[in-house]
């Protein structure tokens, strides 16, 4: 990503160098522009000309309005300071279900994931698993699926793991593919999807539902009437804490994934930004910093690949732990 971005930004740098009086490189808008959602997919800038893909805006305000993001002004909408679509006249936020950069990225990654997994499943449908060893895509995905299911889900959730493994596997691969595509800098990758709180929030919400809809009697008893001295339950301190705990668990999942992926993107982008920040400090310093930043960027990219896998794994593992906790059998009934 480092090198690609550096190459992609070369014209911009040349332009900046040519006209230093135009102002300093704006780091915060550079960072935010790359990690935030947008109504168009900015690809690059060539000789000061923006190259981006306009995306459809879908707005519900006195009926459904669908228009290209390039024609925002003609339809009476504009962007506010936060970069959100607002009514140009009133400044109010309409119900906005536009296909933004992240939505398009999500759609693409989801389609890719479904394609990969269904192709893999098709191999198993068409071949006798007792007579043939997996080949191609099945050989690639099977070890990962088996690792997640047998070593993680089965061990953590317990005997009822079969019921939950489809959800947990879906969550794992969904997060993994979005994380990996987030690191990939060229369209259709590079969208900061799992570093967006709405995305991680929905994932956490699904885990919350999985935990609480299928929780057993013991789980609910533990929340509402836990095994603690009676004065802790008479004034419902413990039940309150437990009920709070129901929500803090998925909340922590949401924040963990969001913060980790966002931080990863920002770190990488910051290293790149150093190159442009030093552009005005002379060719020697800028050149040496560029080399160091590029090397450091390579290192960070490798780290991010690890983090992409790790965060998907952690999310899945903690979801499995929470589901497992909701299915615990009482250790002894006499208590």
């Amino acid at each position, binding site marked *: 990503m480092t090198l690609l971005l550096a190459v992609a930004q070369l014209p911009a740098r040349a332009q900046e160098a040519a006209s230093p009086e135009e102002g300093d490189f704006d780091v915060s808008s550079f960072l935010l522009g790359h990690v935030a959602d947008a109504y168009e997919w900015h690809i690059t800038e060539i000789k000061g000309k923006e190259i981006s893909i306009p995306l459809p805006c879908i707005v519900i305000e006195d009926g459904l309005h669908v228009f290209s993001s390039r024609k925002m002004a003609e339809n009476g909408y504009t962007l506010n300071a936060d970069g959100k679509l607002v009514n140009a006249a009133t400044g109010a936020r309409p119900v906005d279900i536009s296909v933004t950069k992240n939505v398009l990225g999500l759609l693409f990654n989801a389609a890719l994931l479904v394609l990969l*997994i269904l192709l893999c499943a098709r191999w198993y449908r068409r071949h006798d698993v007792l007579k043939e060893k997996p080949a191609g895509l099945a050989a690639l995905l099977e070890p990962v699926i088996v690792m997640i299911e047998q070593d993680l889900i089965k061990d953590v959730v317990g005997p009822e793991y079969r019921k939950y493994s489809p959800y947990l*596997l879906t969550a794992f691969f969904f997060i993994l593919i979005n994380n990996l595509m987030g690191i990939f800098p060229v369209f259709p990758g590079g969208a900061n999807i799992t570093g967006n*709180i*709405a995305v991680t929030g*929905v994932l956490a919400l699904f885990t919350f539902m999985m935990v609480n809809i299928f929780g057993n009697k013991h789980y609910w008893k533990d929340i509402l009437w836990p095994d603690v001295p009676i004065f802790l339950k008479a004034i419902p301190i413990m039940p309150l804490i437990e009920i709070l705990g129901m929500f803090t668990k998925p909340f922590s999942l949401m924040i963990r994934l969001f913060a980790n992926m966002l931080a990863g993107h920002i770190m990488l982008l910051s290293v790149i930004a150093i190159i442009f920040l030093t552009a005005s400090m002379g060719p020697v310093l800028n050149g040496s910093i560029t080399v160091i930043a590029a090397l450091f960027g390579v290192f960070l990219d490798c780290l991010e690949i690890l983090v992409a896998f790790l965060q998907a794994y952690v999310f899945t593992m903690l979801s499995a732990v929470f589901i497992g906790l909701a299915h615990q059998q009482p250790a002894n009934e006499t208590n």
Partner: protein
Amino acid sequence: MSLITPSFGLLFWMVVIFGIVFFLLAKFGFPVITKAVQTRSDHIADSLQAADEAREQLANLAQEQAKMIEETRLEQSRILKEASETRERILSQAKEDASAEAEKMLEHAKLEIAAERESAIRDIRRQVAMISVDVAEKIVRKDLDVSEGQLALIDRMVDEAEQAQLPN
């Protein structure tokens, strides 16, 4: 700040997209794969167990075989011993029987010989008596005066008697 305020549009799309992905993968994707993998691992476990059992059976078989060989060897030596004993017994029995038979035959022969001799002696006695009677008769029949004539007569008589006796 826009980074930590979730936007409704993305929430909406995320629910829809993740919901669809979850439905598709949970229905047509992962169960197929995990079931197939489970089938295979069960099959492998079964095969391993079967192989283990077969190996155990084989070991048992070898043990049984060794036991059978051992038993056979014991049986063989027992039979050999018995046979030699039987031979010894038969031989000694035969020897005993033969010596007893020989004894008996010898006894028998002795008795017979004794009986023969007895009857022969009796016969001779009878013959001598008869000859004596004949001689006495002849002597009585002739004139007892002439001694020379008498002696010649006796001699003649004895010869005659002898000759008469001989053809018998």
